[in-house]
């Protein structure tokens, strides 16, 4: 199939359709509106379900209902809307039904702005809703990668009976890139042993997240944890660039990782032995691989569009073995490659000590600007 120019949000929507999306529920919020708008004609055209709901709580509970039938179901939103969905997400996790969520992050907190941000990393990766659960989170850095991850997201959600989130920011949602879309997959509704559909010729199915009997709730938590541990063992995804001989490693996800690639290329051209590690599965996080990289690297530079949320995960893997540096831009400000190049140069000049606090040093530098 030929390469075509597609806007990120629309490409994601079409990729979901081609991955067998059966039902989409949404509510307008910038910068993800094009997903909703695109699917408002595409889904009915194919005889599939589409509803523009009255609010994000309604959206996520429509998703919840549809997910209980075993259908491939998705919603998309941006930061404030995702906050409103957290109750429903917790119920979906607790009921052990599959769904795909697309979060096109924007600047926050509060109403914030509509510029690209990575400020929701903690909310999305660490749970967000109440209770002990672990959603699977994939963070593509380009439209093509997002498109390629859509069928994967549905497969993971259904395999692990879990929420699978595609975590991007407004820049990936809004920009246009040449991409190749996958072939259309047929919609296949599997006969799940748990889904509701009317108890014709079988025992009835009950889907709930209430377990008043406390030991049963503990067992449920352990069942969730068991599936999560399986995902941790099998679903680590990342991309490495120029790491073979790298003495310095830049780590960034999504758009920050993509900008970092330009900076790493430029630093390589200047003769520096720098590489890039870009986590794609930010939950489960590739802790082991980061730990291995400590053995070859003199220092890490972590770059994010937040105050260092993923940094904590990197630190958990590094455990003060090597010095680290952090650089973040906040509230919707996009970093330029030049800023990262400068950070790389500073790191090489003065890698610091393993027990330096990279977030603290970065804050001091920001305030001194």
């Amino acid at each position, binding site marked *: 199939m030929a390469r075509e120019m597609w806007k990120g949000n629309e490409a994601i929507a079409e990729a979901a359709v081609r991955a067998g999306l*059966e039902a989409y529920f949404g509510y307008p919020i910038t910068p993800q509106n094009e997903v909703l708008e695109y699917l408002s004609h595409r889904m009915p055209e194919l005889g599939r*379900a589409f509803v523009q709901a009255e609010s994000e709580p309604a959206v996520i509970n429509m998703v919840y209902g549809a997910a209980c039938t075993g259908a491939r179901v998705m919603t998309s939103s941006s930061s404030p809307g995702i906050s409103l969905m957290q109750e429903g997400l917790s119920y979906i996790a607790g*009921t052990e039904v599959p769904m795909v969520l697309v979060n096109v992050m924007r600047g926050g907190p509060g109403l914030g702005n509509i510029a690209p941000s990575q400020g929701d990393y903690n909310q999305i990766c660490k749970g967000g809703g109440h209770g002990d659960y672990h959603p699977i989170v994939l963070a593509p850095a380009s439209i093509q990668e997002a498109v390629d991850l859509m069928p994967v997201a549905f497969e993971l959600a259904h395999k692990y009976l879990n929420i699978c989130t595609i975590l991007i920011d407004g820049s990936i949602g809004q920009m246009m890139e040449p991409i190749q879309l996958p072939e259309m997959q047929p919609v296949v509704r599997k006969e799940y042993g748990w889904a509701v559909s009317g108890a014709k010729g079988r025992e009835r199915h009950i*889907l709930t997240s209430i377990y008043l009997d406390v030991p049963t709730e503990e067992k449920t938590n352990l069942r969730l944890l068991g599936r999560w541990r399986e995902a941790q063992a099998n679903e680590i995804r990342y991309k490495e660039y120029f790491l073979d001989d790298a003495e310095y490693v830049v780590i960034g996800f999504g758009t920050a990782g993509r900008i970092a690639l330009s900076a790493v290329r430029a630093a390589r051209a200047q003769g520096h032995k720098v590489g890039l590690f870009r986590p794609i599965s930010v939950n489960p996080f590739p802790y082991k691989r980061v730990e291995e990289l400590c053995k070859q690297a003199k220092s890490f530079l972590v770059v994010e569009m937040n105050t260092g949320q993923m940094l904590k995960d990197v630190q958990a893997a590094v455990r003060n073995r090597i010095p680290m540096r952090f650089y973040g831009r906040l509230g919707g400000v996009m970093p330029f490659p030049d800023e990262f190049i400068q950070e790389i140069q500073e790191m090489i000049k003065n890698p610091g000590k393993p027990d330096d606090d990279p977030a603290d040093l970065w804050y001091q530098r920001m305030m001194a600007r």
Partner: protein
Amino acid sequence: MAVTIVNPQNLVYARPKGFTDTPTHYCPGCTHGTAHRLVAEVLEEMNILDRTIGVAPVGCAVFAYNYIDVDFVEAAHGRAPAMATGIKRVLPDRVVFSYQGDGDLASIGMAETVHAAARGENITIIFINNAIYGMTGGQMAPTTLPGMKTTSSPNGRDVETQGYPIRVSEMLATLDGAGYIVRRSLHDPKNIRLAKKAIRTAFETQVHGLGFSMVELLSTCNTGWGVTPVESLTWLEEHMIPAFPLGDYKIAPAVAALKF
């Protein structure tokens, strides 16, 4: 010699097929059990038990699925109409109903209720109006009557600071998407029979694709009201019916023309 007392000729009352053998957890005297039974009878009579999916609320009826013998899901507080929408849109040929209390439907879930009706969502809601939050211990509900004592309006609902009760059926009846909206009561046998007929009509509305249907059932919460079961029936009749008049608030012409 064994004597068969119950044989098909003299059997006038039995457990409906749509009802499980599990004893309900409701307080003695509560009308939730009556409402459940009516739903189970109607689903059995319509022969749709095996293509019906129920949506249970957060409220005393949270375990409705233990008693009504169909596929069931358990919604978040107030979100049952949205969840029912999600199911119905994916499985349009199945029968989907929610069963909700007044706190669930008319307070936290009011937006979901109104918009499901406005969309003409082909679902049925059984709405239990007992003028109180039963499950959490008898707090004021959006349907609590002026002057009525609850654990969060201990001196009686003061309309100056706590506002007025909401008449949901009247409100929803103004929406074009609503096909069938009626209010009935469960305080005596005659009214229970009328309630059952309304529940049947509501499900027929859905089966025929005629839009949103809701049956509001005035119900008792003798525990929350702090009265005996018998007193609660009289209290319902004397106080609730004047505030929430029984009647047909919206019957779309196509619903009125239904023959069953």
